[in-house]
């Protein structure tokens, strides 16, 4: 699995980077302080990822990840890679937490429809015939809570790459390392995840009456 056990670095280590790296940290107190600083900076991002993966268990997942990251801090060769390294540990902790708490397996039962186009479905159904900005009007119906619910319904294998790339700003290469999967697999899941997200936005809107009223 990704995260703990994998040495994270950016692949282009300059002497300056090495000097800033962990080699220069001598005492346990310094090491702990450096970890604390790095981790504190990442808390909002880590919490956001955990919320989208395990919802109300986010705080537990982040604590678990911080503990594991602290114990394997020596494996982080380059502090520039700290966000992706911490995220990889957190993603695994969220998966473990989900398994321990016997959440229903969400990798199955939802098939992606790669031919679905939300753009065309909206144009075809035309829920607000007098709107000049039909597609934007549709998106503006969704609150942050609605988006969270849609994402929560997505199978994890599609949700995680989608969230990490489009909401947390990681590159696809970083996501491949975070989820410990080949880049081609991540790209394929991202592609299916986007189409599934479009389909699930539409289904959610129909189910929750977001298509009613004026555009």
């Amino acid at each position: 699995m990704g995260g703990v056990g994998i040495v994270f670095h950016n692949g282009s280590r300059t002497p300056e980077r090495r000097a800033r790296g962990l080699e220069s940290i001598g005492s346990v107190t310094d090491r702990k302080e450096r970890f604390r600083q790095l981790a504190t900076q990442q808390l909002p991002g880590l919490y956001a990822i955990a919320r989208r993966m395990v919802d109300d268990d986010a705080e537990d997942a982040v604590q678990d990840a911080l503990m594991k990251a602290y114990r394997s801090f020596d494996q982080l060769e380059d502090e520039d890679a700290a966000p992706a390294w911490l995220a990889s540990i957190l993603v695994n902790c969220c998966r473990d937490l989900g398994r321990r708490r016997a959440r229903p397996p969400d990798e199955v039962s939802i098939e992606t429809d790669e031919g679905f186009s939300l753009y065309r479905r909206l144009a075809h159904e035309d829920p607000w015939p007098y709107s000049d900005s039909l597609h934007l009007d549709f998106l503006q119906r969704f609150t942050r809570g609605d988006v969270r619910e849609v994402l929560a319904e997505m199978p994890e294998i599609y949700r995680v790459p989608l969230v990490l790339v489009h909401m947390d700003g990681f590159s696809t290469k970083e996501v491949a390392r975070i989820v410990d999967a080949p880049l081609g697999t991540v790209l394929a899941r991202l592609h299916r995840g986007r189409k599934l997200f479009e389909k699930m936005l539409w289904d959610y809107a129909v189910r929750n009456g977001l298509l009613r009223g004026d555009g």
Partner: protein
Amino acid sequence: MITCSEAVKRLWDYLEGEVGSKDRGAIEEHLGVCRRCCGELEFAQELRRFLSHHSSEDLPESVRARLVYFLEDLT
């Protein structure tokens, strides 16, 4: 020239810069003549902004305080 279906399947990858030069050329050739796929492209851009806009999950101050305390307590 590629079909609408083929173009639409690659639009997100196109926006992310994850298509090769040959595919990029084919998509741009199609977009040059297909108004509907240009609409699809604009909507894909809107969806990317939509996801980014909804990305923030506020870290409650009480949770932040507990996590900071937890970090300080690590030995």
